[in-house]
Each structure stands twice: as structure tokens, then as C-alpha cells.
């Protein structure tokens, strides 16, 4: 849902993400998250496009426990490992320089990858039967990034804006509980 909100503010950046988790051990939720990224912007001063995917996996621990059987609200802290890969290019850009004069350039299509860790904390509450809404606050610690890329990606799928070093972001999610 966070990605949908971002598309509202910046429609050139489209990210779709899906998340699944399972309480394999009591109060321990093992999760897998993944998504795709599309960036496409054609403007008078530049064109830029990117496409890629990302994966995250980790575990959340429910601090609240289960004092009652009907208690489905969760307070979670967790850790995740994440990987993102993308291709991007800027076939045309204009650099303004009032003193030396403006000039144009282009950047060929190239690949980019990033590995990072996430530390998360948040809540998930049952709004209706088996339907949950939740948010997590996440801080991201980059581990390894491409060094050979000619430019920093504008947006790294699953991570956030490429120029940010260690973003702290809030994720809003809607979940449906399957009766497995």
C-alpha cells in the first residue's frame, strides 16, 4: 500500500510488492517479500527509465504473545535480508550551468544491484475477520552496492531513493489470513 501511495505522489515510479508470512514457531513469523519496479519518465529536460525486482526474507517476533486465543493483534520486531536488481538508462539529460553553459549527455543502459539488511518494528491489527492492516517502521543498512554504474539509480526497488544512504521508511500493508 505504501507503493500505491508513492505512485500517487510520483506517478513515474511504479512499485508493486507482495508479502507472505507464516507462524512456523509460536510468535515467530517467517516472511518472504518481493516486488517489481518500473520507472519511466520522458520530460523536456531528461528521459530516464528503469526496471527491476527485489526480494526480502527474514523473521518477525511478536512481542505481544498470545494471552487469549482470540487475540490476533501483533506487535512485531524483525530483521530482513534484501536484494534488489535493476537495469536503468538515461538516453538524454540536460545539465544546467549558468556560468559555464548548459550541456546534454546520455547514459547507456546498465545493470545495478544492491544488498542490504532491514531492521523493522511495527504493529498489525485485525480490522475485520481475517483482514489485517499494519505498518512497520524500517531502517535499511546497505551491505553491498554496484560500484561500476555510471549513475546512481533514481529509485532502488524495495530500498527507496538511490541517493539515500540508510533510509528509514514506513510500510503500510494489508494482509489476509489464510486458514491453513
Amino acid at each position, binding site marked *: 500500500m505504501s507503493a500505491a501511495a508513492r505512485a500517487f505522489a510520483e506517478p513515474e515510479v511504479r512499485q508493486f510488492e507482495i508479502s507472505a508470512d507464516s507462524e512456523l514457531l509460536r510468535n515467530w513469523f517467517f516472511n518472504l517479500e518481493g516486488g517489481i519496479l518500473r520507472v519511466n519518465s520522458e520530460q523536456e529536460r531528461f528521459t530516464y527509465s528503469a526496471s527491476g525486482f527485489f526480494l526480502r526474507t527474514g523473521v518477525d517476533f511478536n*512481542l505481544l*504473545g498470545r494471552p487469549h486465543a482470540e487475540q490476533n493483534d501483533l506487535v512485531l520486531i524483525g530483521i530482513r535480508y534484501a536484494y534488489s536488481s535493476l537495469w536503468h538508462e538515461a538516453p538524454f539529460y540536460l545539465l544546467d550551468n549558468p556560468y559555464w553553459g548548459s550541456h546534454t549527455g546520455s547514459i547507456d543502459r546498465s545493470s545495478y544491484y544492491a544488498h542490504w539488511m532491514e531492521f523493522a518494528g511495527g504493529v498489525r491489527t485485525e480490522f475485520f475477520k481475517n483482514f489485517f492492516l499494519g505498518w512497520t517502521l524500517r531502517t535499511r543498512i546497505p551491505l553491498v552496492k554496484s560500484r561500476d554504474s555510471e549513475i546512481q539509480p533514481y529509485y532502488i526497488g524495495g530500498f527507496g531513493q538511490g541517493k539515500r544512504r540508510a533510509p528509514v521508511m514506513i510500510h503500510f500493508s494489508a494482509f489476509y489470513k489464510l486458514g491453513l
Partner: protein
Amino acid sequence: MMIIYNYMSDFFWGKRLLHIILFTVFFISCINEEVCEDVETVPVRLGFYTEIENEPEPASLIIDSLKVHGLGKDSLIYNYQRNISRIELPLNSGADSSAFILYFPAPPEFSHLAKDTIWFFYDVLPTLISMECGFASFFELKEVRHSRMFIDSIYIEQISVTNTLDEHIKIFPFIDDGDN
């Protein structure tokens, strides 16, 4: 665990309201308020300093009057600016080096001796700031050279020239201590 549960039950008592507030704040926070003028031309910042005996840190030095222009350019960046301790110079993003001539205050008969040239050698890093602002040039300084008429030495403090307010270069002019 019951203490945590009771505490969090109070928290969840207003969970729907809490979620609505957080969602609203999040949607508002998505509005992009990047100021494009601030990032259009990213300058290299130079400060003037002097060493003080028995002091670990150099002291800021105020130059009475300073004229600066780019090498091969007529238009002035500073036109006999008074009482100046820090300058900002626009690097040429269309080349991998830029040079500037600095004219320091001096009696008319020595004015030809009171000017120095500084050469900057760098990598240009085109960076997509935002969809609204487009591309700007960031730089990574590789080398700085200078003539030694008025400038004694230069120290590169920060090689990354980005849209922060960091000072990148410390300039140490020759100081006439009055003994000669």
C-alpha cells in the same frame, strides 16, 4: 507478558483511529517538496584559513576584497567582494577540469603578484535529483592544483561535491606576520 499485553491493549483500543491518522500523515508526507534551485548548480566550497600557533584547528581568515572568475571567462563570480571567508565556485560539468583565477587585495604596484589560479580535476557524476528537478551534476574531486603567489597551500577536506553544505577545500594564504 501480561503487563505488555495490558499496555498494548490500551494502545490497540484506539487502533482504527491510529491507523487512519498514520495513513493520512503518510499520504501527506509523500508530497515532493524538493527545491530545484538549490540543486541546479552544485558548487565546490572553499574556505580561507590560517594556522594558529599551539592551536590544533586552523582559524577562519577573512579576506578584505576578492575578485574571482573562471579561466577563459570574462564574467565575474565575485566582484571585489568585501570581507569574505568562504567562496563557492561552479565547476564545469561539461569537462573533467575547471580553473578559476582569484585576485587578492594588494597595493596597485603589486596587484599583478596577488592573483592565483586554482585547477580542479574531477569526475562528473550526473544525478537524477527528482522527476521535477531533473538531473544535476555532482562531482568527485581527484586533484586540486594551484599557483603560489598568494596561496601557500590547499587541503582537500571533502572529495564529494554534492547538494550538501559541506566545505570541500581549505585554502591557507601566505600570511605576512610583519617580521619582514
